[in-house]
C-alpha cells in the first residue's frame, strides 16, 4: 500500500484530526456519488431498457451526473445489463480489471443476478455475474423499469456516502452495515 493510504490513520491520532477526516469523507463521497460515469456495457435486452431508455430524455441519467463512457479506463461504474454467457464471462472480468479504483458494479436484470430465465435448460449461460466480479447493487426485473434502475443508482449513491477515509488502510473492500 502507498504512503497516502496511511495518512488518514495518522491524521485521526492528532487532536482535531477527526474533523479533517470527516470533512474529507463528506467531500470525497459526495463527489464520487454525484458523478458516477458508467461504462456502456450491454449485451441483451436490458441494454435497451437500462442503458438507452433510462439514459434518454424521459428518465434521465444525466441529472444524477451519470454520463456514459465507452472505455473502461474512463468509467467508474459498470452496469452489467444483459445475459452473460460463459464465453463473455472472461471478457467481463478483463473489463472490470481495466476500470480504475474506486469502481462499482450494478447487476441489472434477472440474467445478471442469477441467470434469469436461462437458469434452467441452458448450456452456455453464466448463472449470475457475481461469479466473476464483485457486485454492489442488484436491481431485479426482466427488464427492470427505468424507475427501478434509478432507485438502484440512488441506493448505490447512499452506499458510497457511507464510505470512510480511514478505510483506506484496510485491505478488504468496504461493506456497509445493513440497515
Amino acid at each position, binding site marked *: 500500500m502507498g504512503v497516502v493510504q496511511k495518512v488518514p490513520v495518522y491524521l485521526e491520532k492528532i487532536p482535531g484530526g477527526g474533523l479533517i477526516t470527516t470533512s474529507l469523507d463528506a467531500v470525497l463521497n459526495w463527489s464520487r456519488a454525484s458523478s458516477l460515469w458508467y461504462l456502456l456495457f450491454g449485451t441483451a435486452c436490458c441494454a435497451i431498457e437500462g442503458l438507452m431508455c433510462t439514459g434518454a430524455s424521459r428518465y434521465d441519467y444525466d441529472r444524477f451526473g451519470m454520463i456514459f463512457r465507452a472505455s473502461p479506463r474512463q468509467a467508474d461504474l459498470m452496469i452489467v445489463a444483459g445475459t452473460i454467457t*460463459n*464465453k463473455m464471462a*472472461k471478457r467481463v472480468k478483463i473489463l472490470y480489471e481495466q476500470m480504475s479504483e474506486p469502481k462499482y458494479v450494478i447487476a441489472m436484470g434477472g440474467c445478471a443476478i442469477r441467470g434469469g430465465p436461462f*437458469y*434452467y*435448460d*441452458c*448450456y*452456455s449461460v453464466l448463472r449470475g455475474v457475481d461469479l466473476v466480479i464483485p457486485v454492489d447493487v442488484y436491481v431485479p426485473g426482466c427488464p427492470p423499469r427505468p424507475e427501478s434502475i434509478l432507485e438502484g443508482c440512488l441506493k448505490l449513491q447512499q452506499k458510497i456516502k457511507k464510505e470512510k477515509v480511514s478505510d483506506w488502510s484496510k485491505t478488504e473492500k468496504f461493506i456497509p452495515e445493513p440497515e
Partner: protein
Amino acid sequence: MTAEELTSKIKATFAEKVEELPAVTGIPAFRVKAEHLEEICTTLVSDPELKFDNLSCLGGIDYPETNEIGVVYCLFSFAKRHHLNLRVMMPRENPEVISVSEFWVAANWFERETAELFGIKFKDHPDPRPLLLIEEWDEGYPMRRDWEGKDFIRMPEVGQEK
C-alpha cells in the same frame, strides 16, 4: 412459381433423388440423401427457372428415436420469389455431409455453429473453426437430444419445484 408448380418441377428434374415431405407450412419440402446433395444444389442454383440464390437458414435436427441426425436447408429465390426446404438425414454414428458454402456463402457460419452444437462434419468447409462455444469446450455436443453437461440444470416438472 407457385408451390405446386415448384413441387412438380423439382420432382421432374431430380426424379428418384428426392422424396417429397408433407409441406406443413405451405413451402415445398423434400428429403434428400447426403450423397446427392452436391449435384442437387448445383442445379438449384444454376437452373434459370429455379434460381435459388439465397439460403435463409441452415440448422441441425436430431431424432434419437429413429437414430437419425440431420440438417435442414431453407432456400429462397430473390429472382423468382419462391421458397424451398430440403432435409438431409444421416445415421447418428458418424454424420457427414458436404458443405454448401461454395453455393451460398451464408452457409459458412451456419455450418460452423451446427458442426459445433450437433457434431455433424461438413466436408470441404473453408473455415471449420468452432463459432459459439468457449474455446476450452470439451463436454460434447449440447444440442443433441441426449446431452447432459455437468452444469446443466434441467427445468423441474410442474408441481415438483422445491
